[in-house]
C-alpha cells in the first residue's frame, strides 16, 4: 500500500510537470492546427531568461517567472509575424520543416550566447528541500508544480470555454472565413493564442527546470515527449491533455519503479496500446 502511494505521488508530480510544459503545444496543435516542433525551444528560452534573472541578476523567483513569460512572448512576436503566419493552414510536412528549422536556430544561438553548460534556476528557500508526507518525503518544488498544474488547467479551461476570447478562438479555428466575416479579427486572435501558447511553454520551462534541466539541447531532447503526451490526449483538448499526462506519468513512473530495465518498452508499448484503442487520442475531436 505504501509503495502504491509512493508511486502515486511521484506519478502525480511528474505528470503535472509534463502537463504544464506541453499544454501550450496542445493549444497550437489542436486549436491553431500548427505542428509546432519548436515548442520545446520556447520552453527553453523561458528557462534561460529565468535562470539569467534569478541567478545572475539575483531577482526573486516569482519575478523571474514573470520576466521569463513576458520575455519569451516578446521574442516570439516577430517569429509569429514573419514565420508562423506563413505556415498557418500549410501542409503538416511544411510546418514540420519550418519549425524544425526554427528549433535548430534557437539551439545554435542558445549555445553561442549561454554556452553548453547546464543552467539552474535557484529556488526560493521555501521550495527547497524535502517535505515529509508521513509515509515518505517529497521535494517541496514538486508540490509547487502540482499546484501550478491545477491552476493552469482550471484557468485555461475557463479562458477557452467561458470567455468571449475563447468563443472567438474556437470560431476562428473552425471556420476562419466565416468568423472574419462576422467581425472577428482572426489575425489578432491567432496572434494572441500563439502568445498564450508560448507564454505557457515558458512558464512550464521554468517550473519544470528541476526535472528537465535547461541546456541548449533541451529543445530537441524533450520534443518527442511533449509531442507524445499532447497527441495521446487528443490535440486541443485540455482535459484530454491532463488525463494523458497523468496517465503517462503514472505508467512511466510505475515502469521505472517496477522494471527499470524495461522502462522504455513499458512506456512506448503503453502509448501504442492507448492509440490503438483511441486512434484520435483520448479526448480528441473527430475531424
Amino acid at each position, binding site marked *: 500500500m505504501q*509503495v502504491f502511494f*509512493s*508511486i502515486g505521488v*511521484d506519478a502525480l*508530480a*511528474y505528470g503535472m510537470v509534463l502537463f504544464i510544459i506541453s499544454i501550450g503545444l496542445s493549444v497550437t496543435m489542436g486549436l491553431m492546427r500548427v505542428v509546432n516542433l519548436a515548442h520545446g525551444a520556447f520552453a527553453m528560452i523561458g528557462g534561460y531568461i529565468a535562470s539569467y534573472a534569478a541567478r545572475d541578476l539575483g531577482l526573486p523567483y516569482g519575478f523571474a517567472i514573470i520576466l521569463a513569460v513576458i520575455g519569451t512572448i516578446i521574442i516570439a512576436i516577430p517569429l509569429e509575424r514573419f514565420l508562423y503566419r506563413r505556415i498557418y493552414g500549410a501542409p503538416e510536412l511544411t510546418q514540420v520543416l519550418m519549425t524544425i528549422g526554427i528549433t535548430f536556430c534557437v539551439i545554435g544561438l542558445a*549555445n553561442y550566447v549561454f*554556452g*553548453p*553548460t*547546464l*543552467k*539552474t534556476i535557484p529556488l526560493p528557500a521555501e521550495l527547497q*528541500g*524535502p517535505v515529509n508526507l508521513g509515509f*515518505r*518525503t*517529497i*521535494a517541496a518544488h*514538486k508540490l509547487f508544480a502540482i499546484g501550478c498544474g491545477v491552476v493552469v488547467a482550471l484557468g485555461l479551461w475557463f479562458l477557452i470555454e467561458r470567455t468571449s476570447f475563447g468563443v472567438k478562438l474556437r470560431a476562428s479555428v473552425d471556420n476562419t472565413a466565416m468568423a472574419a466575416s462576422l467581425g472577428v479579427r482572426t489575425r489578432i486572435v491567432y496572434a494572441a493564442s500563439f502568445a498564450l501558447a508560448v507564454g505557457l511553454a515558458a512558464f512550464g520551462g521554468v517550473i519544470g527546470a*528541476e*526535472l*528537465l*534541466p535547461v*541546456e*541548449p*539541447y*533541451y529543445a530537441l*531532447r*524533450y520534443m518527442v*515527449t511533449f509531442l507524445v503526451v499532447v497527441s495521446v490526449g487528443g490535440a486541443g483538448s485540455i482535459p484530454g491533455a491532463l488525463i494523458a499526462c497523468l496517465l503517462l506519468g503514472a505508467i*512511466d*513512473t*510505475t515502469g*521505472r*519503479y517496477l522494471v*527499470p*530495465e524495461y*522502462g*522504455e518498452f513499458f512506456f512506448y508499448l503503453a502509448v501504442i496500446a492507448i492509440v490503438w484503442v483511441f486512434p484520435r487520442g483520448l479526448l480528441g475531436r473527430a475531424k
Partner: protein
Amino acid sequence: MKKLILAAAAAILLSGAAYADVIKIGVVGPFSGPFAIQGKNFKAGIDAYIATHGNKVGNDTIEVLYRDVPQADPAQSKALAQELVVKEGVQYLAGFYFTPDAMAVTPLLQQANVPLVVMNAATSAIVTKSPYVVRTSFTTWQTSAPMAKIARERGVEKAITVVSDYGPGVDAENAFKTTFEKEGGKVVESIRMPLSTNDFSPIMQRVRNSGAQAVFAFLPSGPTTLGFVKAYNENGLKEAGVQFLAPGDLTQESDLPALGDAALGILTTFHYAIAHDSPENRAFVEAARKAIGNPAELSFPSVGAYDGMHVIYKMIEATGGKQDAKKAVDAVKGLAWESPRGPVSIDPETRHITQNIYLREVAKGSDGAYYNKEIKTFEKQPDPGLAAAK
C-alpha cells in the same frame, strides 16, 4: 597540378628549411550537438599543449584538423576518418569521445599506416582491436573498481548499483560488483535504467527500500546527472545516511556549478580533478582555461587530449616526421611522464595509460566555487577491464 607544384615550391621557399614538413593530425569528436562541451574540451587540451610546447617538432610544423561527429555515429566517424586519411593526408588520428566511433575506425589503421590516439572513449576493448591504438584517457573499469575498495574500507556491507542502461553503464556496474564482492561485500540489487530517464524519484525509492548502505551510480556526464543527484537529496537518502558513490563522470567540473550544494559530500573516484595540486597541473589549467574561453566549461576530456598530444609529439620525434605507424606506436610503449593528472605511463602490453586514480569529495572552496577535493590516491592503476574480459 601546376598550381599545386607552384604552391609547394612557394611554401618551401618561404619556410626556408628544405626538409620542413607540415604534419597533419586529424581529430574526430563531438564539436556540435548535445556533447559539444566535451569536444570543446578536446580542442582546449590540444590548444593548451600547442600553446605551451609550440607548434613545431624538430623542423616539422603541426597542423590539427577537426571533424565533427555530434552523437555516437560509427558510420559517420569512419567516413570522416577515411576522408582525413585519403584526402587530407593526416599522419595521426586522434580524439574520439564515444566508444563506437573509435571502434569503427580501428579497421582502417593498418592499411592507412596511421596510429590512433584515443583521447576519451572508455571501453576497455578498443585497444585490442588494432595494434596501432594508444589510449590516454581512462576506462570505466579503471575509474570504477577502486570505488568498491573504498566502500569496503568505509565499512559498507551491502550496496546497490544504479547505472544507465548502455555500454559504459554496464561496464561500471560490472567493475564495481566484481571488485566489491571480491572484497567480501554484497551487492543487493543492480538497477539499469534507460538513458532517457528524467524523473529519478521512483529509482531512489527503490534504493531506499533495498536497505543498502551505499549506492554506486553511473550516468553519462551532462543534464541527467543533475536530476539524479537532486532526487538523491530530495528523497531523503542523504539524511538516511545512504552513501553516494560514483566514478568522476558524475561530478565533472563543468556540471558542478549546476549541481551546487546538492553534490556536497559525494564521493567519486577518477583519474583527474582540475583542482589537482601540482605545478604541471597549474600550468595546464591556466593554458587550457585561456584556450576554452569560459573557465567554467573546462572538464576531464581536456587532460586526455593534452596527454594525447604529448604522445603524438613523442611519436613524431621518434619517426622524424615520416609516416610509420608501427615505429611511432613502438616508440611510446612504456613511455612515462609527469602529466597534469600525476605520474602516468603507457603500458607496453595494452597501450593503455597507467595512472593514479584519486578518491575525491565534492567540496566548496573559500571562493564559493565547488571542486573535487582529492583525499586519497591509488597509485599506478592499470586497466582491470581487459583482464576481466578474458
